[in-house]
């Protein structure tokens, strides 16, 4: 499978996430679109790691070439889990203060 197909697919997923962040006003949906963008990047990292592993196997180099990308994906998942817990706590606090999860309420930070 050519690497370009994986790049196109991940770019499409990422763009859907971007459109969601730009067009929705519900803070939870915006947050879910950010998760979607993170997942697209994770899939692309794994695809590139398999690409470099295939090249290394052809050249007779070490069998574990490209394993760092998968470790990176693991750490991205760890950071995403921590980020989601904090973000949802902030959304709950925002709902308690304003009784709405409309992100347009947040523009009061401007003044």
């Amino acid at each position, binding site marked *: *499978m*050519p*690497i*370009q*197909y*994986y790049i*196109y*697919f991940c*770019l499409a*997923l990422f*763009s*859907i996430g*971007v*459109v*969601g962040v*730009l*067009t*929705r*006003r*519900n803070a*939870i*949906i915006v947050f*879910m*679109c950010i*998760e*979607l963008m993170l*997942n697209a990047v*994770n899939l692309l990292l*794994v*695809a590139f*790691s*398999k*690409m470099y*592993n*295939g090249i290394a*196997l052809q050249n007779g180099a070490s*069998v*574990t070439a490209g*394993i760092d990308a*998968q*470790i990176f994906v*693991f*750490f991205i*998942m*760890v*950071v*995403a*889990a*921590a*980020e*989601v*817990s*904090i973000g*949802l*706590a902030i*959304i*709950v*606090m925002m*709902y308690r203060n304003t009784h709405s999860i*409309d992100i347009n309420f947040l523009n009061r930070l401007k003044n």
Partner: protein
Amino acid sequence: MNALEIIFYALSAFALVCAIMVLISKNPIHSVLWLILVFFAISGHYILLNAQFLAIVNIIVYAGAIMVLFLFVIMLINVKKDSEPQKQLFVKFIGVIAGGSFLTLTISLIKQAQPLIGKTVLLKEGTIGLIHPLGKALFNDYVVPFEISSVLFLSAMVGAVLIGKK
């Protein structure tokens, strides 16, 4: 077209349709359920790439833990189905135009990229996605980041409790 390509195209189409449904469904709970389907499709992609550890971790962490957290919060704050104020149609149109132009621009760049021509992804083969090599790399070369990530989790837990208690 062999079986692997058919599986790739089917999983990709399924993931894209579910991702679009996340955007256009009005009810936030439906959005969460569609997003869980996207994560399962991405786990299928990981299995196709023989990254079995990441596939299982993706299901457990994303579809299992994070999405349950989202569902909890949505049920906790009891969002009405029709209460979400919509953005103006003009703003939505601009958003779609911005995302679409980003997509077309990057796709045209990737099409011209010389270093990527002829490179293929190893499907179904290779051992780097299995637990044994990943565990060796994680606990030999990446021990310090692993321990630091546990400190990060602790601080996130303390922060969530602090923010939620107010």
